[in-house]
């Protein structure tokens, strides 16, 4: 058989190697054939049929897959072929959201361009009735299934070109579409955001996401080649980097320069290329304390800052480490640590827009890469980078992390070394379930990044048991109990957990009875608290009570409006007790004849705790929400509180004068404060000072029980956490 075949295309005789497709033969000889599903670097599949040509056979042939035959006569144009193409394009256009995102952004949607060239205006065919939807979960790529023409170019780009094997087809007939992994949202799939699918897509179905502030100001622009030369970017798609070149910059720092400050909001993460930085909390590690009333008659009391050595509050966490948004925790007594080349910090700020948890100052001259979340997201999914990050964590942070958990603080070094290579770092996207109630318990988890919501399924809906911040742990109840998960744990934002497998956990509790006893004690405590909370919730089905969120409260400040003469003594007393800044406002929702004043409700579902960058706001085992001494005053808890019950308390501090070395200047800082129930007194000041017996601090179910017609639980409402 001859190696070369000769054929005629549009009247021109051409010779091509055997096996060449008509499309390639025409292309080699400068004869254009339109196509949508075919790309030179991919295996042809002939699904769009737009490249049909007349080969003098019974039906038109798809040029991209039909091989040339000896003596074949091909007509790439002509009325019949053009009509067939126009009809195919018209059918595709009938489902296409014209102009699609790509057409809007760059005007080069291949389908719409082809439709225009073929004179296809408004399709005659009706649109599909059921929308196919969009997927906005990826940080780098926008997916619009409406604009997808099922050409499979993305599938082949992902599978053949990049060998990532993430994209495939799903569904049948009219429900056919492309899917990521097993139908996951793109952001939750194993997609590494290499961008190959995006550059392969002929329409606006897969487009580069132009996220807010995609351009970083200042710093040195880094060329793609330079980035790819860095070990940390090894394996990252050059296509992606060139599309997101402005989302990563190189910054040089001199010793003493501040990289970021605690409490500030930001959207970037930093990767240290060279040099070292100090990470520390500059806000005094103290809490706002009101001095007693012994200053003298009629003098206004003053608040001051008091540390644990001067004033240990009931329920104070004996924690020795402060969790921050970096690979290290800060020791409580001397909250400073150093990071060096290869360390990444600011992940939570970048991924979840949490405030900065610590101040970072260059200790030596150095260079860092500052990146936006689309770049960080790609890095996080990059195997090389992940391996490097995990290795750093295992070597430098795991031991601290384990020791920061009080129940595990006593583990001997041998066992930590045993765990070092056995634990697994696992990431979860917002909303992703980490473990589900009723499933077999197979692991114990320590939260390294983000917040985990623990909830329990009840007939009326899910009951939130706890929010676990960085430094917390969960999963021990299932492992120590019947081997079944008792609650569902879900990632609230971008979460990373340290997974200790059931086998290692079993070894730990077997070899260290002290750890076992402590874990069991905590598990029993949590179970009791959860049971009490569930009992309290099950009892109430009253609309208004629930609608006003009163069910969520564990302690309410209510004013009996039949008694209250609006004299404001309660507000005055609160202000007097808290340095002239009241923590209650005599306004709020009404329930029955009571005004529920704006003052901390000690919620069962304390949303204020979600997002605290240093985990300083937490719930005591008894009842109250406590703000620990290492609060950095970012104010996130205040904005998270749905009832406006947390305020920021200003206080004076002396800081180093940046303009004059060795001198200090007076400035103000803030710490979050909420109603502290005047814990140092027998009764809250507002209640004590009410002359009309109108103000009451009450446990809502007990207080309103008779009005709601409920069987009042005797001891409902003790706070706690879940596991």
């Amino acid at each position, binding site marked *: 058989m001859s190696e070369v075949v000769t054929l005629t295309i549009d009247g021109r005789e051409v010779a091509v190697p055997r096996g060449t497709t008509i499309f390639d033969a025409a292309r080699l000889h400068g004869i254009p054939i339109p196509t949508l599903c075919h790309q030179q670097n991919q295996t042809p599949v002939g699904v769009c049929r737009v490249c049909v040509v007349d080969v003098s056979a019974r039906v038109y042939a798809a040029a991209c897959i039909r091989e040339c035959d000896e003596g074949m006569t091909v007509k790439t144009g002509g009325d019949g072929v053009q009509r067939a193409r126009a009809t195919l394009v018209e059918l595709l256009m009938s489902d296409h959201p014209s102009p699609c995102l790509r057409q809007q952004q760059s005007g080069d949607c291949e389908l719409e361009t082809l439709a225009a060239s073929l004179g296809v205006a408004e399709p005659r065919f009706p649109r599909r009735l059921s929308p196919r939807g969009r997927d906005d979960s990826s940080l780098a790529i926008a997916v619009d299934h409406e604009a997808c023409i099922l050409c499979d170019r993305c599938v082949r780009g992902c599978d053949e070109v990049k060998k990532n094997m993430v994209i495939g087809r799903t569904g049948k007939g009219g429900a056919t579409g492309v899917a990521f992994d097993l139908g996951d949202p793109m952001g939750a799939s194993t997609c590494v955001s290499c961008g190959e699918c995006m550059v392969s897509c002929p329409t606006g179905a897969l487009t580069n996401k132009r996220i807010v502030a995609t351009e970083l100001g200042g710093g040195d622009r880094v060329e793609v080649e330079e980035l790819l030369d860095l070990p940390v970017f090894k394996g990252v798609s050059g296509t992606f980097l060139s599309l997101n070149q402005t989302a990563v910059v190189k910054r040089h720092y001199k010793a003493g320069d501040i990289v970021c400050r605690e409490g500030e909001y930001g959207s970037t993460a930093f990767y240290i290329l060279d040099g070292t930085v100090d990470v520390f909390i500059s806000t005094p590690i103290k809490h706002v304390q009101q001095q007693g009333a012994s200053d003298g008659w009629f003098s206004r009391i003053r608040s001051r800052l008091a540390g644990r050595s001067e004033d240990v509050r009931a329920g104070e966490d004996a924690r020795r480490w402060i969790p921050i948004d970096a690979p290290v925790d800060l020791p409580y007594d001397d909250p400073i640590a150093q990071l060096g080349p290869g360390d990444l910090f600011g992940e939570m700020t970048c991924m979840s827009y949490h405030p900065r948890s610590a101040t970072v100052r260059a200790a030596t001259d150095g260079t860092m890469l500052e990146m936006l979340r689309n770049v960080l997201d790609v890095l996080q999914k990059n195997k090389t980078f992940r391996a490097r990050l995990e290795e750093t964590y295992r070597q430098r942070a795991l031991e601290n992390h384990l020791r920061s958990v009080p129940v595990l603080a006593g583990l001997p070094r041998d066992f930590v070394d045993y765990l070092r290579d056995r634990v697994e770092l696992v990431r979860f996207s917002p909303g992703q379930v980490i473990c589900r109630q009723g499933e077999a318990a197979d692991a114990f988890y320590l939260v390294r990044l983000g917040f985990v919501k623990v909830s329990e399924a009840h007939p009326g809906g899910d009951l939130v048991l706890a929010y676990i911040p960085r430094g917390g742990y969960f999963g021990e109840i299932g492992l120590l109990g019947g081997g079944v998960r008792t609650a569902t744990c879900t990632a609230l934002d971008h979460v990373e957990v340290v997974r200790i497998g059931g086998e290692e956990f079993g070894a730990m509790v077997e070899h260290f009875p002290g750890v076992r006893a402590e874990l069991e004690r905590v598990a029993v405590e949590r179970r009791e608290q959860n049971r009490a909370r569930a009992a309290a919730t099950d009892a109430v089905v009253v609309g208004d009570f629930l609608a006003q969120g009163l069910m969520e409260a564990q302690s309410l400040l209510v004013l009996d*409006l*039949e008694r209250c003469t*609006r004299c404001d*003594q309660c507000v*005055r007393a609160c202000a007097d007790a808290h340095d002239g800044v009241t923590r209650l406002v005599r306004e709020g929702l009404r329930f029955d004849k009571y005004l529920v004043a704006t003052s901390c409700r000690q919620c069962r579902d304390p949303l204020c705790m979600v997002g605290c960058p240093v985990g300083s706001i937490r719930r005591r085992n008894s009842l109250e929400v406590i703000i620990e001494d290492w609060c950095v005053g970012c104010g996130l808890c205040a904005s998270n509180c749905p009832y406006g019950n947390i305020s920021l308390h200003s206080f004076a501090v002396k800081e180093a004068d940046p303009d004059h070395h060795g001198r200090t200047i007076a400035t103000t800082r803030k710490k979050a404060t909420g109603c502290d129930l005047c814990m140092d007194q027998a009764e809250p000041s507002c209640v004590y000072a009410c*002359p009309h017996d109108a103000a009451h601090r009450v446990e809502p179910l007990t207080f309103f029980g008779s009005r709601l017609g409920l069987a009042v639980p005797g001891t409902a409402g003790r706070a706690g956490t879940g596991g």
Partner: protein
Amino acid sequence: MRIDGTHRRWALGSAAAFVAAALVYAVGAAGTVGPWSGGSALGLTFGVAGFALMVFAGLLAARRKVPIWRIGRAQSWMRGHLWLGLLSLPLIFFHAGFAFGGPLTRALMWLLIIVVASGLVGAALQHVLPRVMLDRLPMETIYEQIPHVRAQLVSEADGVVAAACGAISGDLATIVRIDADPAAPLRDFYLNEMRPFLESPDAPHRLADPAYGAQATGRLRTVLPETFHQAIADLENLCAEERQLSREQRLHRVLHGWLLVHVPLSFALLALAVIHIVMALRY
């Protein structure tokens, strides 16, 4: 303060003290030859006791200045103020033997009567008005915030009218112009009637009367097309809120207005009582 069953102990204690004092006075007065003298041992005892109760009642003001001092719950002080302050009146009467005496003591007696009476009025108001406010002020706000809320109402009403009419300012409605500008009656009503009402609520205004308000908006509904009806309903709500703010202001003033009489006269009473004591003991 609401006077209810929780006052039983204070009420019974005060009544018992009153009865005991009355018996002592009756026995003492019967055994006295000649007119009753406040300077007698018994009279002096009544005077000291009465003055002590007056001082205690007056200390409530000081107690309120230091609300967080743990020197007894504020409500106990208030109950004491109410019942012991009331008890001071008969004790002082027993001290004086029901005689008003000279100019100073006469002034003192009248002051005491007025202070106690104003206190009783205040107690009655505090007993009744909070419940009235609960019923009649479903959207009650903090009293000091009322001017701010009013400003918000004006701004909100401006927004409603601007959204409905295109602009707040414009030509006034005439029969000719209504055809050309269907929004004119609404704008006319707002600028001439409602806005002055919202801006100067203390001045007498027809819209303060809900019946008049309903009539006025009813008229608007008949002359304006249906597209304006939502705006009219919004303006009605804003008027109703303004009326409620005015009502709250009135009730609040009544609830606290009696203190303008009670407090200064109480201080005057105590000051005169001290003068009386000094003069009585010295001369």
